[in-house]
């Protein structure tokens, strides 16, 4: 069958008409995603953490990470601000916010940093092969067998958590906190860091319960906490939640919108592709341009 211009335009029109007949709702076309309702979470009480780095040590052990350069009982590493990396899925940072203790000494606030396991993870949204997925138990899980190493997740993460094994040229992986996926999938399993914490600065449980617990703690001791559960609303909610004595902005937490990151990106992206309007208009534009130019050429030929 010969496809001439007339026929092509006709077919396009038919397709457009068929698309318009479906009339799906715009929002659901962009965001059909629902966070897992029964997810686990961890509530970190920064006013309790003593900065002992046992969570780092436990994380290292349960994930079989390489021996650190400086031992875990060396607390001088806290002098620098660190980020999680391919060899440490969680780190403790120390902040001096100006608060003074009863001895008039600068009181430190220790902040545990790791993957927040977003309810609506941007990394999973950005991953083009589905290597990163939000699991029903709350973990944002990384499947190395699917990963192609594009590192879109690293760009996408609002907390800049995923790290890449740049030192490994052949089989590099994206590394980040696993939420001890295997451990918490078992009955009674706890994440390594939460289990080892000597003061239970980390409480492990159902996310919904933890939010209740956090609110309860605030109600019981309002002077002790900022009236905010960090992670309850940030980027649509995270499985890891924080409560703090100090303003979150002072202890290294980013101010983030309550809308999940994928909401914007996926809306744009899905919007572009809904009803195929974007490619269709592109082809229509190209077709129109071609038509105009061809006509001009035809006319020119005629003139010559």
């Amino acid at each position: 069958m010969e496809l001439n211009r007339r026929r092509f335009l006709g077919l396009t029109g038919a397709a457009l008409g068929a698309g318009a007949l479906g009339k799906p709702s715009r929002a659901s076309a962009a965001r059909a995603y629902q966070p897992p309702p029964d997810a686990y979470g961890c509530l970190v009480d920064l006013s309790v953490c003593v900065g002992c780095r046992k969570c780092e040590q436990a994380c290292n052990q349960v994930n079989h990470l390489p021996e650190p350069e400086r031992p875990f009982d060396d607390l001088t590493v806290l002098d620098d601000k660190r980020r999680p990396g391919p060899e440490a899925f969680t780190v403790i940072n120390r902040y001096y916010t100006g608060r003074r203790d009863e001895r008039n000494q600068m009181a430190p606030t220790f902040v545990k940093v790791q993957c927040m396991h977003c309810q609506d993870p941007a990394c999973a949204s950005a991953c083009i092969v589905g290597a990163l997925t939000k699991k029903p138990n709350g973990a944002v899980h990384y499947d190395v067998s699917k990963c192609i190493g594009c590192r879109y997740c690293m760009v996408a993460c609002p907390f800049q958590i995923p790290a890449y094994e740049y030192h490994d040229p052949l089989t590099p992986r994206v590394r980040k906190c696993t939420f001890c996926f295997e451990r918490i999938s078992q009955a009674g399993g706890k994440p390594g860091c939460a289990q080892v914490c000597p003061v239970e600065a980390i409480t492990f449980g159902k996310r919904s319960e933890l939010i209740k617990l956090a609110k309860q703690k605030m109600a019981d001791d309002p002077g002790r906490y900022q009236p905010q559960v960090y992670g309850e609303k940030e980027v649509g909610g995270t499985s890891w939640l924080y409560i703090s004595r100090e303003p979150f902005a002072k202890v290294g937490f980013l101010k983030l919108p309550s809308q999940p990151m994928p909401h914007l990106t996926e809306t744009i992206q899905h919007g572009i592709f809904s009803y195929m309007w974007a490619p269709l208009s592109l082809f229509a534009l190209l077709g129109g341009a071609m038509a105009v130019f061809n006509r001009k050429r035809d006319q020119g030929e005629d003139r010559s």
Partner: protein
Amino acid sequence: MSARRKKFLTVWLVGVLVGLGLVLYAYQGPVAATPAAPAAPKPFDPVAAAKKWQQPPPPPPPKVNPDGTPWVPVDQVAALKRAHEVPPLVVKTLEETQRERRLRLGDKMPKMADMKYPYLVLDNPMVNKEGDLYEAVRFMHKKHAAVLEGQCFTCHHAKPAAKDASETTRCVACHQSSFNPELPGRLGLKAALHRQCMGCHEKRKQGPVGCTDCHAKKVPDHRKLVKLPDKPGPLEVTKECLRCHQDAANHLQSAAHWQWKGPSPFTVNGEKRIDMGKATNTINNFCVALPSNWPRCTSCHAGYGWSNAEFDFNDQSRMDCLVCHDTTGTYSKVPTAAGWPFLELDFKKIAQSVGHPSRKNCGDCHFQGGGGDAVKHGDMNGILYYPSKSCDVHMGGMDFACQECHKTRNHKISGRSLSLPVAEGSRTCQDCHTNKPHNGNSLLDHHLNRHVEHLFCVTCHSPVYAKCRATKTWWDWSKAGRKERKPKKDRYGMPDYDWKKGEFLWKESMKPAYAWYNGKVERVLLGDKIDTSKVVDITKPVGGFRDPASRIYPFKLMEGKQAADAVNKLLLVPHLYGPGGFWATIGKTKTPVPDKVIDQAWNKAFVKGMAESIKVNPNNKGLKPYSGQYQWVQTRMYWGLTHETMPAKAALGCAQCHESLAKDKTCCRCHKDERHVDFKKLAHRGTDFEWMKKQGRDVHELIGKTDYLNFKALGYKGDPIVYGGRLKKLPLASTIDRECK
């Protein structure tokens, strides 16, 4: 002979001659050397020394009581058993404020006297499941209650809702495993303990908050970490240890156990010096001093091969890690091999099972001081490997390792002694037991706590020393050398004579000498002038009746006779051990040994001993070479007694020192007679020497003794209850004749 043959022979001869000439020209051996030059000293041969010793490495001390039954640290085992119980979980607690609770209880508030468990171990399998990095914590329950002045509710913050539940229900009843979904917000046991302890310590600004201040770190399994070939030597082991523990070597390098000298803050006129110690200038009245006797003395050095004055203390490869960190109990040093161990030991196995030191590691040297078990220290001997509770309440009852009191940081071990100037920190009983250690909150405790200002704890809490094994109290070197004299066994089975060493006296269960002591020590060191006409105090505690910093301390008095330079008036160092030493010279002589030979042997020993002493103390102006004339002087050393504390009920009682309380009239002179307290019983109970005698202890002289301390000798007019104390007079003399009732 053909011409050709002649030519060949000539050439051959010339060649040989030229060759010989060249060889002679090059050779500059004994012909060139001066005959007077001494031959270079032979390097110390540990293999030969071990062979000469002829005995196999000793087996680990058996973990049994003297009667052969298995040894059990009773208090520790009981506390651990209790700690490992898991009672049913308390779900509901009574909802009330502390004020409501006090109102509810009224007079029924729990009291100190209600406390059932004065000693606890904070341990539970539930906690260990959640992380097993540290050892369990010993917890002085009663002491904490005393410090909190009986405010039990500071820790026991809630009562279970059940009516019959105790007001002081234990932690584990409510706090069990963490993150129980049924009880959101309820802390697990581990967190509850940590928060309670650390929170309170921080709030009250007292008590430890660091991990290793309460816990000992668990040593990781070294079986996979230690990589050694089969049958490694000791030096290979050290190299392997330092591969990971270079810091430890750096720390040990400046530590007393390696240097055998160091800071001496408690020595009079030595407060700023760092050069004093066994390595250089200390002297005693046992085997006298180190110089010239190295290989024998340094068998207790935490290093290998300190056999002469030239030992290199910067050579970390010579450090002996295993002597302190072996946990197999098999590691052992040859007693005469300059610190080298028995080379037939399985060093690989030992290196792979390293851990924290135990009483065995420390004891192998510190119990054996002076050349044998119990010789030197009056309060430390082989009994303490596995002592009974009645012998030492800490080590026997609760299985304390040495470093639990002698806190160690960076291989610097705290603690001090009278015998040696080096101190890397100081420890006292009060560090744990506080200045008010008698915390029963009773009438008697008030009086006992006032004793703390004037008495060191051990003075009452261990009224005899060398309780279970006789220690040497007299050593007369002037009698040495008589090979013909047959040693006799005394009533403890100890020999009264050894031709190598002289005459001895031994004593078991000895009443200490008491003296005022403020922590400072006067010492006679190598090169110090002495008065040879008097008894020379080599170490002497400083203190006095009027000195508020002084307290009455118990001491072992070690007396003996040793040699002094009759001209230079210096204590002499004899060269005893090794070729040319006193022992070797006499050993070669036929029995009976003539006086002249002994005299000559001594002279030879002193020449070498003093020469080597000068070598290791080049800046000591007082040291002089041996003059050629020696004399025997009587010397005395005070040895502090700090170990072998007995259970509280075995401490000296009131009436055993205070004669004024020995009869019928006791507390009632000042206090109204109270029906529920038997004053006489209170004042008259104390150390039960009758019981000790029945146990086979040599204490018959001490039974029924009053004025145990001898107040007059200490500077009091008499019993302080009657005549008043040293710093203030109590108005008690007037009441002394008051009638009771």
